[in-house]
Structure formats: structure tokens, C-alpha cells
């Protein structure tokens, strides 16, 4: 049996993080929460299949910075970005960096589930 794909969730708001995890878990997905980009980079294993659910407004290394870093490292991880404010600049940068999807808060939970399931393929 193949290793189930994992959804990596990074959000510095604990309630947002735990609610997203609760939602995805309820839909039978494997979820791994991180409250900062640094934690994620420290833990991330390239061989692990999955996708990354990223809140762009993060303390420390921002979400877009993390994206750039991932792209520099040639990591092929599908990334879904959630932005708190619909800043067009952010959307554009994110799209340029090749994210799978950009979602805007508040996100319909079912949309979120759909997007993640699609990203996981």
C-alpha cells in the first residue's frame, strides 16, 4: 500500500489551522499542521507526496517567500494559497510562482475540500 498523500497546512492562526485540519481529517485526508514556514521547512521530506495549504500572511518568513524558496529548490509540490485580503499583487505573484490555486478568505469549506482533493489528484 502506497503512502497516503499528506496535506501540509501552514497557518499562524491556531484556530484557522486546527479548523482546516479538522475539516480535511473529517473528509478522510491525512493532515500535517505547521504554524510557521520555518517549522515546515525543518520537517518537510521531499519524497512525501501531498500538497501544501499555505496562509500567505505568516509571521517570520511570509507565505510568498516560502513559495519562492520552494521553487528555487525545484520542489514539485502543489501549493494552494489562502489569502486573507484579496490583494491583487499577492494573487499575481502567487500565480507567477505556479501555485495550483489561490483561495480568498472566507473560503467555502466544500470548495476548500474540493481544491485540496483535486490537488492531491
Amino acid at each position: 500500500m502506497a503512502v497516503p498523500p499528506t496535506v501540509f497546512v501552514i497557518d499562524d492562526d491556531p484556530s484557522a489551522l486546527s479548523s482546516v485540519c479538522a475539516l480535511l481529517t473529517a473528509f478522510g485526508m491525512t493532515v500535517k499542521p505547521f504554524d510557521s514556514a520555518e517549522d515546515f521547512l525543518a520537517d518537510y521530506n521531499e519524497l512525501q507526496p501531498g500538497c501544501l495549504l499555505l496562509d500567505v500572511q505568516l509571521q517570520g518568513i511570509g507565505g510568498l517567500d516560502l513559495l519562492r524558496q520552494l521553487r528555487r529548490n525545484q520542489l514539485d509540490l502543489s501549493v494552494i494559497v489562502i489569502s486573507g485580503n484579496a490583494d491583487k499583487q499577492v494573487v499575481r505573484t502567487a500565480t507567477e510562482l505556479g501555485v495550483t490555486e489561490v483561495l480568498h478568505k472566507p473560503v467555502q469549506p466544500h470548495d476548500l475540500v474540493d481544491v485540496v482533493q483535486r490537488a492531491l489528484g
Partner: protein
Amino acid sequence: MNDRSTPTRPLQSQVDSTIQYPLRILLPLSLMVMVLAHTGWSLFSNRSQIVNSTNREAVIVLRRTMSQLAGSLERAARRNELSTMQYSLASLGADPEVKFAVLIDEENDVIVSMRRADVGHRFAESVSQPYRESPILDAGALARVRMSQISSTLPFGDGHTIVGIHPVVLGAKTDRIRPDHLGLFVVLRDIRPTIQRATTAVSRQAVGTLVMSCLIAIGLGLFFHFRIAKRLERLEEMTRMVGAGNLTVRTGISGGDEVAALARSLDRMVVDRDIAEQTLGLQAMILAHVHDAVISTDLNGNVETWNSAATRLFGYSVEEAIGRSVDFLYFPDNVVAWKEQVMLPRAERSADDLQMRLRRKDASAVLVSLRLSLMNADDGRPIGIIGCCNDITEQKEIEAKLSESEKLVREKLSELEHLYRTTPIGLCMMDTELRYRRINDELARINGLPVEAHLGRPLREVLPDIADSIEPLYREVIETGQAKRSIEVERPPVDGHGQSSFFLASYHPLKDDTGRVRGVSTVVKDVSERRRAEERLRNNETQLAHVSRLSTMGEMVAGIAHEINQPLYAIANYAAACEHLSRRREPGWEEKVQSVMGQIAEQAVRAGEIIKRVRGFVANTESDYCPIDLNELIRDTTKLLSFEAKRLGATVSLELDAALPPVMGDAIQIQQVLVNLIRNAFEAMDGQVNGKNNVQIRSATLDGDASVSVKDSGPGISSDMVDQLKEPFYTTKEHGLGMGLAISQTIVAAHEGHLEIRSDADGAGAEFCIRFPALHEIC
């Protein structure tokens, strides 16, 4: 004291005090002489008397003896008993004074004799010398006796010899007896010894008397000496001393006799004179020292007394003035005859004191007040006039000045009175029984009653509605004597609706000379208008603060929206999870759903809290003062601003003083200040890339005040800018209004606090410190 008025002591003529005829010697001496004379005289007169009486007595005795003997001789002769006769005569010889006794016959021959040898001899031969030649015994004398046959007894003439011749009848004839029958019996007796004896006794008695008298005289002399002369001498000495002016001596003589009485009255006299002299001296001194010029004249107007004040006043010396007519003191046009003036009946005199100009020696005039009075002798007869004058030039000036200043004072007083009455400040005076003694128009107006309705009435009756709150103030002032200043008194609307009135009242104790409080002076100022204006201002400020808060909120609205979005996003996720779980119903789904529902509730509360916080911050509440725990307010505010912190990439660290005292104030407004300061701090650090964007919020107790400091690690403020920051509309920010600090300053000031800006060197950041007085009583 060169005044004429000083009594000069009359010159004492030197009294010769030697006593030429001391009584104490003269008196006894004269007594002795008197006694001596008396004794001599009585001795002399007694002696002749004694001689006479002795002689008389001796004659009688001799006569009697001889007649007896003659009888017996006659009988013996008749019987011719010669021997018997002889014997009878011989018996006479026993008396030594009897010099001889013979019986002779008619031929004068001795028949019988006392001495036997004589018998037979002639009578003349038998008479012994010196009696033999005496004529008494001559023959003639004998013959006369014979003839007369009458016996004779005679004194001899020498004073002490008596001769008795007695006829004797010789009856019987003897051989020897001659026939002549008549014989003579002759006896001679010398009574000198008897006389001697008698005189001796008398002289002895006289001498005794003399000696006694002398002793008495000496005693008398001594008595005189000690009891009278000595004391008189002392008196004499004393009078001399008194005469010399020594009035302190006293006789020192005691006793109940006349001298002592004299001494006592002398002492009394000296004491009286001493007192009189002292009085006189005192009077003289007074006269010399009185400020008034005292001049006395006789009835003719000639000066008799002139004291030194008179010399000072008029310039004439005593010598120049005495004896002259007092007219020299007048100018020719205003001569006043003292005598006429003083004799005027009292009713006709204009006043007791004449005020007039008198002339000085240097011809200048001096304005004096002259009082004349008549000097009377003891019997009421006028003897002179006394005039007292004093210089009233100065007095007149002073009087003029006084009346002027009095006028001034009166004017001032009426000004003050007017001021008191009309001043727009309420004034009243309350006695210690809290009755109105005085009140001005303004206070009467404030109290809403006419002035008359106050006077004399007690406070409680006049102001029953506020008596309870102000009576204790009055009582305290009366008891302690300490003023109470600026006490705020609120008076509820009299008719129950409308607005309360506010007064600022001060109570000052009024004390008498002994420091006892005798009343309270009250100053009342109606500050209702001011209070209302203040209230309006405060309302405006509150409004402004509110607007500012709204604007702040407006700036933060995006952040707040995000903040609220978070829980809502979480809730949506949780809810979807729940829905999916409950639809799939996999084993254990219920527990999962329950836990997720718990999360939902939690997030809903979180969202509610954010909204509550925001609503609290922007609420337009009336400013409401209550005790505030600044620490709690700081925590609350940092929560409100947590999103801003996150948005601007800043961290907040708290350092709170757990013992921070509470302060009194409007919590929302103070929070507004904190928000402004913290946001400024965030904004100052925005864009810094060194990653150390920290705001340090510290609370502390400073000198009893509660303080909060907000310190950032931004660029700081250059010191020349510090003063400008609090100006309204000063901003360096693109979207800033420049109202944050201005409003904060107003709010802090309204809370009697301070806002202080500290900024050290560049890079060290800025520190904003607010400070409020601590609230000590917990309400």
C-alpha cells in the same frame, strides 16, 4: 530745679546749744540752799525758845522746890534741928546744876549751907565766882526780899543762871541763931547743861532733816538728769536735726510721762512734715516735669511760679519771668486779664480752656490752650491765679489731619460697605448660634430671599434644604477657629425640577481680641454657570474623543475585519467537518462531532469578544468616571491591537506593576490614549527590517501616581520636534490626521494627569509616558 515754685528751706540760724544753767543742777542746788536756810533759821529760833522755856521751867521748878524746902527749913528751925536743915540743903547738892544753896540770917551770915564749909561765913564770901558780883545777890537785893517777905526767883542775866531767894522764918533761937527771925534761903542754879542738852537734840534733828533733804535734792537732781534733762537733750538734738532737714530721725523716747508725750507729738510732727515735704517735693517735681507750662500769678497779675515747661514754651527763664506782670505773654491786641477771666461766673465763660495765641520771647506766636483757675487760701480767700498752657499747634495740625483721615476712613468705609452690599459675590456673617448677622444682596439673591428675611434668623430656618450639609462646616470653623476654603456646595433645585446649583463657599472665623471665635464670615460664589460650561466643554471633548475613536477604528477596520474573519473561517470549517462527519457516520463520529462543536462554540465566543471590544471602543457613552485598573486596561488594549501588531509586524511586551493603584477616570477614553500611543509606536517601527520591532508597555507607581509608559524601538523623535507633536493636525504620516496625540493630551489633562514624551538618542526609540493621580479611597 531752678524753679521758683520749688520751696527753698529757710536758712537756719546757728542755735547755741550749750546749756548755761542746767536745771538738773540748779534745781537740786536751790532745794538744798532752801533746806539749809530753813534748818539754820529753825535751829536759831528754836534755840532761843528752848533757852527761854528751859529758863521759865527752871524758875518754876526752883520756886516750887524752894518753897517746899523753905517749909521744911522753917519746921526744922522751929525745932532747932540744924542738922536736919543741913541735911535738907545737902540733898540739893545731888543736883549738879545747883551751884550753891544757903540759908542766911538777918546779918547775911550763912546758917546752913549746901557746902558745909560755908557755914558761919559771910554770905558774900560764900557766893562763888563769877556770881559774887551779881547785883541780884548784893545786899540791896537781899534786903528787898527781906522787906517784902516775898520770895523772888530771878534769872541771872547770863541766860542760864537762876537765883531764888526765899524768906524763911527762923522761930526757935539757937546759940548760933540770931534773934532776928527772918532768914533768907538762897539757891543758885546754873541750867546750862539742861539748855545744852535741849539744843543739842534740836540741832541733831535739824542735821538729820538737812541730810534727808540733801539726799532728796540729789535724788531729784538725778531724776531730773535722767528722766527729764537727758530726754529733753535728745529732743533738743532731734529738733536740731529736723531743723537741718533730716526728717528721718525719730526721738526713740517711750513712756507715759509728759516728756514722752512731747516726744511722741514731736515724732508725729516730723512724720507729718516728712510726708508734707515729700508731697511738696513730688509736687515740685511734677510741676517741673509736666509737659504743660504752669504759671501762677498773684491777684495783680505778677508772675509767682514759672516752671521749666513754661521756659521751654515761651523762652523766658525763671529769673526773667518771676515778678513781672503776666501781660508780657500777650500781643497788644489780645490781652486777657486773668483775674477778670477767672472771676467770670462759670456760665459766662465760653469754655474751660481758652485757645489763644501767646507771645514768645523771640516775639513769635504760639497757639496754646490756656486753662485758668483761682488759687484759694484755706479760708477761701483768693490768693492767686494758676494758668496752665500747652502748645496746641501740633495738636491742631494732628486734629486737622485726623479729621481728614477720619473723613477718608469714612469714605473708604462707605465704599467698602457699598462693595459688600453690591459685590456679585455672596457674603454673609453668621454668629456662633448660626444666625445671620449680616448678608449682602448677592447672597440673599442666591438664597432666594430678601435680605430682611435673613437677619437674625437661624440658618436652618432660612435654608432648610441644605442646612444639613453646611451646618457642620460652620460648626467646625467655630470649634477649630480654622478657615475652610473653597468648599463646593451643591444645592438641588428648589422646586424639585430644573438643574442643581453649585457654589464655592469659604468660611472664615471672626475672632475677638482674645482669639475666641465670635462668628463666621462666609464668601459664596455661584459657580453653577462655570460648572455647566465645564460640563459642556467636557461633553465636546468627549464627543471629539469619540469621533477620533471612530476614525481610529476606521483606519483599523480592515485589520478588524480580518480579525473577525479568522474565527468565522474556523467556524465554517468546523461546521463543514461536522456536517460531513455526521453524514458519513463512521465509527466514533459522535465524539469527533462533539469536540468539533466545542471548537465552534469557542470560535463564536472569540468573534463575539472581538466585536464587543470594538463596540466598546467606539461606543458613544457619556463620560463615566469610575475606578480603573490600568493593568487590565493595558491587557485589553493590546488584545484589541493584536491584529495591528501582526499587520505591522510588531511585538508587544508587557511589564506590569501588580501593586499599581487604581485611578479614577473614563476607561474608554484612557484606552483611547493607550490605543493612540501603541499605534503610533507600531507605525513608527513600520518598515524597519531589523526584526526587532518591539513595543514595551510598562506600568509603575511613581511618587504615588500610576504611570504607564509605551516605549518603541523606532527611530525616536528629535528633541526640537517634541513640543510640536501634541499640536493638533501635526503629522508626518501620509494618511495620518495628526489628532492622536492632541486628543490624548486633552484626555489625560481632563484626568488631572500628564503626558510626557521622552526620546533619548536616535535609534533608541521614543517613550510616551502617561501619569494619573492614584485613587486612594475605593468607591
